[in-house]
């Protein structure tokens, strides 16, 4: 059973003075996320990522289409006890402290009274807020609020976690911690659906990614497949202070940094290039096929439709 099955979900907002003109925020979206998957929803700001998450959370209502979450219709109340949600740039009741807030959310999530406090303490420890548990949230930094946000999203041990830009506004250490947490969730067998525009995070964490732009899903693919695509080029790194004359003839793009040369050339010229290096008695450091990066895939998907025709996945 898929964890999330989105069936032509669509959202138009009515804009203009009379609220008559429809402005599409999400064009019909069809997407399936399997259980245990970490799925990255990529796209620039305003692409429709948050709208999709809000639709799935029941915070806004679809213009058309539907979705099934963990086998239930998305508006089925039973769904809510099995999912966790971290909104973008979360803000919480600032009259409460972290412990009170988590306790309140645990109550609303139906965590049994027996063991509730222990669960709250465990979560505070897990996100590194045990020492700040009694501090009012109005005194929290952005990073600390993000941690509270993560704690509240996984407090009730949900099967499926939705995270909207979980790394946004965090310092490198904070980002690392969130990445570790998502990896832990993956190892626990949870399904994670997170939106981001930080591609390195998606590349490090996701099984699959989807690229959305202007409310339209532009492509979906497994990260391993996308980054394994050979581009018909090889990268040769060797010790030299300039590019050998013979190598320049092969259409080589080379970069010299001190005593090291980094040269990229067509794959079919690989043997000839190695022969040149041997002849010149140049010491080879490495030779690797050039692979596509997630960034290239992302940029390719963001190009206008007419430029992407025949571009693949």
């Amino acid at each position, binding site marked *: 059973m898929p964890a999330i099955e989105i069936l032509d979900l669509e959202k138009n*907002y009515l804009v203009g003075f009379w609220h008559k003109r429809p402005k599409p925020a999400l064009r019909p979206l069809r997407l399936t996320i399997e259980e245990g998957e970490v799925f990255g929803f990529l796209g620039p700001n305003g692409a429709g990522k948050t709208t999709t998450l*809000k639709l799935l*959370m*029941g*915070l*806004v*209502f679809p213009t058309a289409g539907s979705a099934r979450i963990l086998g239930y219709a998305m508006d089925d*109340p*039973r769904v*809510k*006890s099995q*999912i*966790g*949600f971290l*909104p973008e*740039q*979360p*803000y*919480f*009741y600032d*009259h*409460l402290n972290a412990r009170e807030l988590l306790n*309140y*959310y645990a*109550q*609303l*999530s*139906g965590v049994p009274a027996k063991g509730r406090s222990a669960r709250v303490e465990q979560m505070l420890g897990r996100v590194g807020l045990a020492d700040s548990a009694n501090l009012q949230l109005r005194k929290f930094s952005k990073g600390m609020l993000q941690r509270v*946000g993560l704690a*509240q999203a996984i407090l*009730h041990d949900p099967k499926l976690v*939705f995270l909207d830009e979980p790394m946004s506004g965090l310092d490198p250490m904070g980002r690392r911690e969130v990445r570790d947490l998502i990896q832990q969730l993956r190892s626990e067998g949870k399904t994670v659906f997170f939106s981001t525009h930080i591609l390195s995070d998606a590349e490090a964490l996701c099984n699959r990614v989807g690229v959305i732009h202007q409310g339209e899903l532009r492509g979906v693919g497994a990260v391993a497949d996308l980054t394994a695509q050979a581009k018909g080029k090889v990268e040769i790194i060797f010790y030299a202070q300039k590019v050998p004359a013979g190598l320049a003839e092969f259409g080589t793009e080379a970069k010299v940094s001190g005593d090291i040369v980094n040269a990229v050339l067509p794959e079919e010229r690989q043997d000839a290039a190695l022969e040149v290096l041997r002849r010149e008695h140049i010491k080879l450091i490495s030779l690797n096929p050039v692979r596509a990066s997630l960034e290239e895939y992302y940029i390719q998907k963001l190009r206008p439709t007419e430029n992407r025709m025949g571009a693949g996945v």
Partner: protein
Amino acid sequence: MNSRVAYIAFNTFREAVRDRVLYNLIAFALLLSGASILVGEISIDIERLVVVNLGLTAVSLFGVVIAIFIGIGLVSKEIDKKTLYTVLSRPVRRWEFIVGKFFGLTGTLVVNTFFMALGVLLALLYVAHKFETMDAWVLVALYFIVLQFLIVCALSLFFSTFSTPLMSAIFTFALFVIGSLSDDLRGFARITHGVGGWLATAIAYLVPNFSALNVISQVAHGDAIAGRLVLYNTAYALLYSAMAISGAVLIFQRRNLK
């Protein structure tokens, strides 16, 4: 009350009692009750009347200000600050959120009224030196004031579900003022004919009848309050609040939280 409604109500109550502005308003109300002693002392033979009149009016006015001040932000603030997102993404139904908010605000006002009423009763004891049987009617007047708060809370919450805090405050306060003059409005409707009369009658019955809930002048004069009025006013306030809350739920159920 279902447990989620109770948790939301308690959180709303806790939020209100941790707001310093609330204490300033209560302090003002108590100050006014205290001031009524001074005014009472320069009013020969009518000290009691002055204390009851001024004291209860202070309780009523400050309570309404508190109800509007807190009520107007109950939903809109949660949407603006996005605190609502993490609540509604849990097994909480939208109606539970609205009803919980209403009970939380009502609870806050009942507790506030208790402390403000204590101030009035102490002022009364100070000028009269003892309580008399007719002072029991002061408690009935206080009960009616709480019923007024119930309606004001429901109305401010209703407006809060679809308009900005400023507009909600204006709408609620306007209805409070018109409702306080509803007796005059009904009188005007009786002597007006045609479309104007029909319109005046409709408005008179649509706006909350705060006139019927205001017995301050009567109890200040020591007049008794009929048991039937207590019954009618209770039923009326509960029914009117229930209708306003139902309206709030209906609007909020359909609202996109952008």
